[in-house]
């Protein structure tokens, strides 16, 4: 019994310390693998005892410098640094984030990867010329000089102006086959159906290129997600569900891409990605029923 009291084992450590006010001395033990374990005790602001265990590996880094340089290292500090101790002072010298710098002739390739996609959209738009709906001129409809005097092509007024030529069941675009002023959506012909599809298609496309990201950290920010996913292509929308009261993330987010291929790439690459201590799960968003 007394033996145990004299040499407390590790399991009793904390219990024993609670009864003693004085802090145990700092202990340094040398481990088998050459590292040293330093155990420090201190009180925190709440008066609680804190045990700090540090494992340190010492490596001796020898550098041969010429004697002039070695001599200069012993110089006394002066000016604003006169009172600083040995070694770098924390207020003037900090260590930055690690930068990976690998010179390479094609370093720009990574940066370029995103650009062709932007270019492809541009290419798509390149051949599209602006066409006025009133006079078919190369300007926006709102800028048309005949805006006040003529109605858009294919609408009633235009049909009147064009005379009987456009009259008939195959009258293009517009609201319906007849001349009546209003046709309810379900009664509209094929042309109007296209409009319907367009509306529906918009959501469809959105959904097709939308990823659902789950297991997102509470600390996540929309901007962080955007930054992460923008690598794969143009992100049109980022939605991060947040708790209304606390403002913390709820743990899931939706990311919409402009292109489905980008979304697929992002889905493949980001699924299982470690972000803020959590492993992201990325999948295509299911269509709402």
């Amino acid at each position, binding site marked *: 019994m007394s033996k145990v009291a004299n040499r407390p084992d590790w399991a009793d450590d904390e219990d024993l310390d609670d009864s003693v006010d004085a802090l145990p001395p700092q202990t340094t033990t040398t481990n088998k693998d050459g590292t040293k374990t330093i155990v420090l005790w201190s009180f925190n602001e709440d008066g609680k005892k804190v045990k700090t265990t540090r494992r340190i590996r010492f490596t001796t880094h020898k550098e041969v410098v010429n004697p002039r340089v070695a001599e200069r290292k012993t110089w006394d500090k002066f000016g604003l640094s006169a009172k600083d101790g040995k070694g770098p002072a924390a207020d003037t*010298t900090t260590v930055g984030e690690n*930068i990976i710098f*690998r010179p390479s002739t094609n370093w720009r390739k990574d940066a370029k990867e995103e650009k062709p996609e932007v270019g492809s959209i541009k290419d798509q738009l390149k051949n599209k010329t602006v066409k006025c709906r009133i006079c078919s001129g190369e300007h926006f409809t709102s800028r048309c000089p005949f805006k006040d005097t003529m109605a858009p092509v294919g609408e009633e007024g235009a049909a009147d102006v064009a005379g009987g030529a456009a009259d008939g069941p195959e009258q293009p675009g517009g609201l319906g086959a007849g001349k009546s002023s209003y046709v309810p959506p379900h009664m509209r012909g094929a042309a109007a159906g296209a409009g319907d599809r367009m509306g529906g298609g918009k959501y469809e496309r959105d959904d097709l290129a939308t990823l659902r990201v789950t297991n997102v950290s509470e600390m996540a920010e929309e901007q962080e997600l955007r930054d992460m996913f923008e690598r794969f292509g143009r992100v049109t929308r980022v939605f991060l569900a947040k708790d209304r009261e606390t403002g913390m993330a709820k743990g899931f987010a939706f990311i919409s891409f402009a292109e489905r291929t980008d979304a697929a790439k992002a889905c493949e690459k980001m699924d299982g990605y470690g972000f803020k201590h959590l492993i992201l799960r990325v999948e295509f968003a299911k269509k709402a029923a």
Partner: protein
Amino acid sequence: MRPVLLQGHERALTQIRYNRDGDIIFSTAKDQHICAWYAHNGERLGTYHGHQGALWTVDVDPTSTLLASGAADNTVRLWDIRTGKCLKVWDFNTAVKRVEFTEDGSQLLAVTEQRMGFLGTIVVFDINLDVDGPQSDERSMTITCEESKATVAGWSYLSKYIIAGHEDGSISQYDAKTGEQLDNVQVHEGLITDLQWAPDRTYFITASKDKTAKLVNARDLEVMKTYVTDTPLNSASITPKKDFVILGGGQAAMDVTTTSARQGKFEARFYHKIFEDEIGRVKGHFGPLNTVAVDPQGKGYASGSEDGYVRVHQFDKGYFDFTYEVERQAKAAAAAQQQQQ
């Protein structure tokens, strides 16, 4: 590589200099003191106080005993590096934009601004290398730039020429003994912002607001290489050991608030000195790079920015290993030839 951030200035950096052994870095900024830092760990050795205006330039003599600085308070000051004591003050009519010691440290040149009716000049002083000895008040030579003011200047190999870069983008060659202008070549289209020497001072690199940097021969002012970028350049430096050049620049300081950090191009750009290709960039600053300096031993470089930080980088293995395919082939061919013999 993990950069060390030095936070000794409250305002924009203007120049950084390594001493010849590459162990101490001197930095000046638009606040009124010079900082000296150990290059290996970023520890501040000390600060030099005395200037009453923004500091524009600093240079260290080859033995690392004397430090010269030029400032907007119209003075050049000479300092004892070890103690931080001011040894000598030379007064001018206008601000001093550049100082540089000769290779042996026996002379110092200073470039003065053109302002208030005074023409820009390049002034030369003889320096007494003894710290405790007296320094002469007399200027040993004065070159007056009548056409376009000089913005930067330096001593060529053997202190034979003084090379000056001008506001109009031209480069002049002066005889360092007589001050006579030997040559003037239009090299850039914009103001020349920096001029730094190759280790042997037979050629130098200039950086200009016209978005290019050029490698120029000191003897005949022939442009040997041109490095084209997409941003105005403030500084350029030649790396020893590896055939690279480092360019620093970015959006002009006054336009910075209107651009995002990504568009501002606040990166140090590495170009291959011979092939003129861009081979990489190092990010980190939040403002345009005002000055770039390379360790004369080739182990690292430091950049100073409008954001008030100096970032000291030590190159790692990837930097030293990088070679072009043709370089590797040439090396292999040389080795094979040696074996045959």
